[in-house]
């Protein structure tokens, strides 16, 4: 319902709708593209170009999936095209973030900044203060488990358990945002 109105607004070139969609998804799409291009300037250009062409070609806009799916898959295709074009495949950052070396099998992270922040905050609110402190040290400050164990004077085993515990809660909150196609594909 809401989505339908946004898509209609985009097709009719309503600037308020365009601005809204742009502001809502811009940072999420840029961060998403960073997984492929790993250059702040290039990803911003790429996402901006995409939105300009969306505006220009708005009459030909056909969205069969959700608006979000449309935006993220379009951006992904543009990223892959860029990579193919530039033949810089060896420069793939290839999931330094994701800890995986298989580009294709990794899960796309489809998030708008607002959604992600709300989801993380909701999850963090469910953790005990100690558990939260450990998790933030790990993920926010990038400390290794050993460093956290030294800093807080607890065993490394405790650190690992508490991080697993935090991840479990966050996983449940985030799982509803997993792209549907992936869930279907995995369960086939």
């Amino acid at each position, binding site marked *: 319902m809401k989505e339908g109105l946004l898509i209609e607004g985009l097709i009719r070139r309503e600037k308020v709708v365009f601005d809204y969609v742009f502001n809502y998804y*811009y940072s999420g799409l840029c961060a998403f593209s960073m997984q492929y291009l790993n250059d702040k300037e290039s990803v911003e250009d790429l996402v901006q170009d995409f939105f300009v062409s969306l505006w220009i070609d708005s009459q030909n806009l056909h969205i069969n999936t959700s608006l979000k799916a449309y935006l993220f898959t379009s951006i992904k295709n543009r990223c892959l095209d860029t990579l193919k074009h530039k033949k810089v495949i060896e420069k793939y950052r290839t999931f330094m973030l994701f800890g995986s070396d298989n580009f294709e099998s990794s899960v796309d992270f489809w998030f708008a900044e607002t959604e992600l922040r709300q989801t993380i905050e909701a999850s963090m609110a469910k953790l005990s203060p100690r558990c939260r402190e450990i998790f933030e040290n790990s993920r926010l400050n990038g400390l290794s488990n050993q460093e956290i164990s030294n800093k807080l004077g607890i065993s490394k085993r405790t650190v690992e358990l508490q991080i697993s515990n935090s991840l479990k809660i966050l996983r449940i909150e985030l799982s509803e945002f997993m792209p549907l196609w992936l869930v279907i594909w995995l369960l086939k």
Partner: protein
Amino acid sequence: MNTNFNDIEALLASYLSGDISDESRMIVDSWRKESPENEKLFQEMQYAWNAIPILQEMEQFNSFEALKKISPMLEQEGSGIRWIKILQRIAAILIIPLVAYAGYMTISNISLKKLSETESIIQTISSRQGMVSKLTLSDGTKVWLNSGSSLQFPLRFTGNKRQVKLKGEAYFEVAKNENQPFLLNANELNVEVLGTSFNVVSYDDESVSEVVLVTGKVKLFSESDNSEKQYGFMHPGQRVVYTKKSQKVAYEEVDVKKYIAWRNGDLIFVDDSMNEVVKRLSRWFNVEISVKDPEINDYIYKATFSDETLSQVLYMLKISAPIDYRIVESKPLPDGTFTKQKVILMKKKE
């Protein structure tokens, strides 16, 4: 091998951080291959593991700047809608009290007779509802006064301090004068500066006052019932919220653009609660907004508006959030004036 998921979960924190023994890594890998459900759980864990770094990554991208950059390209292409835009603007002029630059000023307390005593003449400038006024004080300080706010200042600054008094919201670009510090009084909260730019919000009917510092350095202290409290210096990019009752301040680092956009006629919401959105919209458009369903207050909103009318803004709310609205038209009063326009926000019925 039939491994319990709880055991696996305990291993995953090490697995994801890469700090894991080969043996444990193999256990996790073979568990992943056991079933698609396991693989899905693993992917979800990885998702959770990446969430915060990705959020940090997102935070370095500024959509408002980017939108400004591409907007000229959109204008050129939007010839088909130009007419609608012009019509919208005309409609806006007719219907809505426009947010204008050098808005209306009501100058009071000026006694022209006593020109020789200009030093002691205090004047008050109020910005009408729905208007932004811009003024320059005698020392060269520029002030943008937001809708429904008022500023009291002397025609000429004498003595060892430049003292002004604010009710409401204003943005200051203070002219530098180290010999004569600029002292702003906003209800109980005082801001002392040498030369800098900052935004202050301090409405009488609110329990907090806030200061956002854009450049330079300011000193804060409060005064109430003869008790004075010092809060030290603020640094650029900081926002301070002062609670009147407890005389306490809270500092936070913010993106200042959001707080000063109003002076260019822009209204920016970045992850603001509906509560805050309602407050700002009602000041901006000079309407009374009431919320019928309190659940709405928790809704988080992100948007930017520049010259949209109230009905356009409400329409945007409607299509982007589970919110519906009803406008109660102003009624004429016996004395020829009109009642304030009212808007009622409610939860959208699915």
